[in-house]
């Protein structure tokens, strides 16, 4: 057969009632915990992460364990539910290690089958971070630590949320993945473009590590889930930008009328709306494909499509929000900059749109010249 062929089993692209209820609960919680002035103030403190919000999400609602089977103390839910949580976290640019710990580190552990550590991550009382640079796409080569005499050494950079991690999942040069306690490593914050998902350097000097399993498949699976669900976070970011901008332009008056009544702006917002509507379908398709379990080419296609589409839309939404808020949008005090920084960083996270298009070229048989 040539090409990808027709796909006749259609993904479920809607939200179930339970998913909508979950969304409402998360949104309520974030309204109490993560208001924009609070997030802005936190970015300038020593503790950019909001661990109180994390505790409420993880302890209070058990959301850190959505992807973990009940046998290991999780909720045994699917990527569809995790995606809804991420939409809301994106909408609030919440500085919590959800994507990095509850999705990416958790997926790596699921691949290794480490029940004990999974259980701790599921409870949210332990935060995990995969020690692979945030910019790397699924399948990309990544730096590793040197393993010798049962201890690990080396420096790994660009590790998202490592600053709050209790345990680091470190790929070694022997092809295995190791669990290293954060207290046995040196974690140095890097000055990050995205203030709400800061990066850090992890330095290991003869750090003891516990072998979890094979690194290759674990890292690939983790990054694939990260990339796929990142699209839902990007949807949340874009949706916030559109909604806030529409609201503002209905209120803001110049030339004796609401500026939202000028056709040049109406068309830009309508265009943006259309892209957000498309992004929602793409993000739901990726979440639904990941939820189907068995990794297949079809899952890889859905993830790559979502990532190739999501990043430019989220960035454009945030950029349009800034331009249309004009002077006020350019201030530190207005939250739009948090969204622009998150959207732009997200456009690199887990692979750029270009990297995902290149992956697609192989997957759907549209080879390069």
């Amino acid at each position, binding site marked *: 057969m*040539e*090409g*990808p*062929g*027709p*796909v*006749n089993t*259609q*993904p*479920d*692209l*809607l939200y179930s009632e339970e998913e909508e209820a979950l969304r409402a609960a998360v949104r309520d919680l974030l309204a109490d915990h993560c208001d924009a002035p609070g997030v802005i103030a936190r970015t300038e403190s020593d503790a950019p992460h909001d661990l109180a919000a994390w505790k409420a999400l993880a302890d209070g609602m058990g959301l850190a364990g959505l992807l973990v089977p009940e046998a290991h103390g999780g909720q045994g839910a699917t990527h569809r539910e995790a995606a809804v949580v991420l939409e809301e976290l994106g909408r609030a640019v919440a500085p919590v290690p959800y994507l990095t710990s509850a999705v990416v580190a958790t997926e790596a552990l699921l691949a290794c089958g480490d029940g004990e550590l999974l259980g701790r991550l599921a409870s949210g009382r332990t935060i995990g971070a995969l020690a692979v640079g945030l910019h790397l796409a699924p399948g990309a080569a990544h730096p590793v630590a040197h393993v010798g005499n049962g201890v690990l050494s080396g420096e790994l950079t660009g590790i998202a949320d490592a600053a709050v991690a209790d345990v680091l999942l470190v790929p070694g040069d022997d092809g295995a993945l190791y669990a290293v306690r954060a207290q046995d490593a040196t974690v140095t914050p890097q000055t990050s473009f995205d203030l709400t998902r800061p990066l850090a350097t992890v330095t290991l000097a003869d750090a003891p590590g516990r072998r979890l399993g094979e690194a290759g498949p674990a890292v690939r699976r983790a990054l694939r889930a990260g990339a796929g669900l990142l699209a839902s976070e990007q949807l949340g970011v874009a949706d916030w930008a559109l909604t806030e901008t*529409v609201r503002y*332009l*209905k209120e803001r008056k110049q030339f004796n*009328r*609401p500026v*939202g*009544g000028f*056709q040049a*702006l*109406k*068309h830009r*917002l*309508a*265009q943006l*709306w*259309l892209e957000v*509507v*498309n*992004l*929602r*379908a*793409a993000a*739901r*398709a990726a979440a639904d494909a990941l939820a189907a379990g068995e990794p297949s080419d079809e899952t890889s296609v859905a993830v790559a*499509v979502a990532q*190739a*589409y999501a990043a430019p839309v989220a960035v454009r939404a945030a950029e349009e929000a800034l331009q249309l808020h004009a002077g006020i949008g350019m201030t530190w005090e207005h939250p739009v900059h948090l969204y622009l920084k998150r959207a732009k960083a997200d456009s690199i996270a887990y692979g750029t749109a270009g990297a995902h*298009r*290149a992956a*697609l*070229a192989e997957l*759907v*048989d*549209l*080879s*390069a*010249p």
Partner: protein
Amino acid sequence: MTDAAELTRRTARLLADHPPATTARQDFLKARFDAGLAWVHYPQGLGGLGAPRSLQAVVDAALEAAGAPDNDPRRIGIGLGMAAPTILKYGTEEQKQRFLRPLWTGEEVWCQLFSEPGAGSDLAALGTRAVRQDDGDWIVNGQKVWTSSAHVARWAILIARTDPDVPKHAGITYFLCDMTDPGVEVRPLRQITGEAEFNEVFLTGVRIPDARRLGEVGDGWRVAQTTLNNERVAIGGMRLPREGGMIGPVAKTWRERPELRTHDLHQRLLKLWVEAEVARLTGERLRQQLAQGQPGPEGAGMKLAFARLNQEISGLEVELRGEEGLLYDDWTMRRPELVDFTGRDAGYRYLRSKGNSIEGGTSEVLLNIVAERVLGLPSEPRTDKDVAWKDLAR
């Protein structure tokens, strides 16, 4: 309420009583209509059973599996998508009985006499006049333009001005026009593709009985809204397989002709492939929403998305073909029954898809609609609202 099991039973009975293999196409379609399996959400006696719209899929799948003939919905699209819902909503019992069956079976093709040389996006500015006679009938004079399928149509939906002394939206009345009546003249209007898919229609002293009026006198604008809304819904929400749209032919060319590939075209192709796949998913999401009885506003966006995609993708394919892209398959002036995107070359697709952002409301007008009705942004300031039509500057 008619449920899926009941529809399955009825479909099986239809197939047993009228085996597709031995039944003439028209006879099968008539029997299907009479069994209430044409559009199951329509009322009993009018081709339906008052069932939920989502159950149509059950019937369609079973009939398709049995190799039953279909009514070629593309050929009869205007009747099916626009005339029918309007007649159902505003028609008299006699009109519904007379028109819906032959419309659905495709025996009678419909066209839409809305646009005029001086009234396109501002459709309510139209000037075709319908004047009431002493016997109650109407005499219509005017010119319509860009009328698709007028040359094959038996009937037309027509809007005309019946009162020039009131503001433009208030003086319009909606009619069902017999295209074979004296005074109806259809002239081909050749378009950029070389063929004449649409026409000019001249209406000179055409007599329309009052029984062919749809809705109240002066209420035509409201009736036309039903038509126009359905026109846009008809375009989104169809089920497509991956690569089912315009991206299909260009992907095929890419796979089969490695000698044509360049890096620049590769990047553009992948970007459009992704956008086409995402638009397909959005259409599917809309369909799933409709099936659950929760129509979303996404429909308004689908036409916009497909118009742009069709244009960009077909434009890319012309470039990809290089030397061949300098050629065209056939400029012969023809009057086709329907648009055939896939049976023609890339150059044809490129030219014809330019109409996608014009027909059924331009992309600019649709963006206005999204901004105002979906996002709730303020509408344009208006200077024509309280002025009688006859006093408007033209």
